[in-house]
């Protein structure tokens, strides 16, 4: 299978969040993932898009969010970039720590890491790039994993 790549450049709006989620759901379905995995991938993309629109670009109409989907025989790779000031990963709290359990925010990155196989976050002063990777499991893989 040759790699397939689709790229979107989107405004910093809530519609972008929904569009990214829908595109992820469609891509994951076409890649052959089951319903539960499709939901997890779509949710991870939604959370990353929320971060890009809300925290990265802060709804700035002059800044864009780009979402790239790349599908290979092994992986579905989704890369989301914003044009914000870059996030400080050291300041992302552990949402499972007892003192943070009742906080009303701060669970997005945790959910993304929970739902994807690999996550790379690359902040810079010109924006944050987050790469989400889900490994494509063949029927043979699934059979092996169940044994």
């Amino acid at each position, binding site marked *: 299978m040759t790699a397939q790549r689709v790229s979107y450049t989107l405004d910093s709006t*809530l519609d972008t*969040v929904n569009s990214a989620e829908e595109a992820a759901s469609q891509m994951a379905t076409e890649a052959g993932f089951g319903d539960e995995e499709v*939901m997890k991938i779509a*949710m991870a993309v*939604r*959370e990353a898009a*929320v971060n890009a629109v*809300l925290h990265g670009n802060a709804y700035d109409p002059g800044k864009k969010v780009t979402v790239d989907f790349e599908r290979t025989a092994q992986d579905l790779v989704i890369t989301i970039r914003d044009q914000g000031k870059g996030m400080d990963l050291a300041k992302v709290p552990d*949402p*499972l720590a007892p003192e943070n*359990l*009742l*906080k*009303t*925010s701060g*669970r*997005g990155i*945790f*959910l993304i890491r*929970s739902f994807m196989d690999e996550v790379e976050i690359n902040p810079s002063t010109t924006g944050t790039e987050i790469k989400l990777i889900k490994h494509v499991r063949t029927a043979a893989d699934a059979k092996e994993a169940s044994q």
Partner: protein
Amino acid sequence: MSMKTSTRQVDGVTIVDCSGRITLGEGSVILRDTVRDLLGKGNKKILLNLGDVNYIDSSGIGELVSAYTTVKNQGGELKLLNLTKKVHDLLQITKLYTVFDVKDDEAAAVKSFSK
């Protein structure tokens, strides 16, 4: 599908039947406004029926936490009813399942509120 709520009273408990998605934006705002409105009217025993909530994101989870703490801080109780598997799993992995009082039987849930 956007979020919808309707409320009913059963033995002094306000049951909020929620349906749709509780996500950043409209869904979270509707939940927040509903709880705020109930508290404003003095309804402090609130049972959120999430049986028809098919999707919730981190903002929605945050809104549930906010509703829980807001009601508790005003001397009330907020409990959750009929979680779908997706919402149940999300509350499990975020360790919130043990924070919320989660019920799966409406009659028993209503009785569980303090008199």
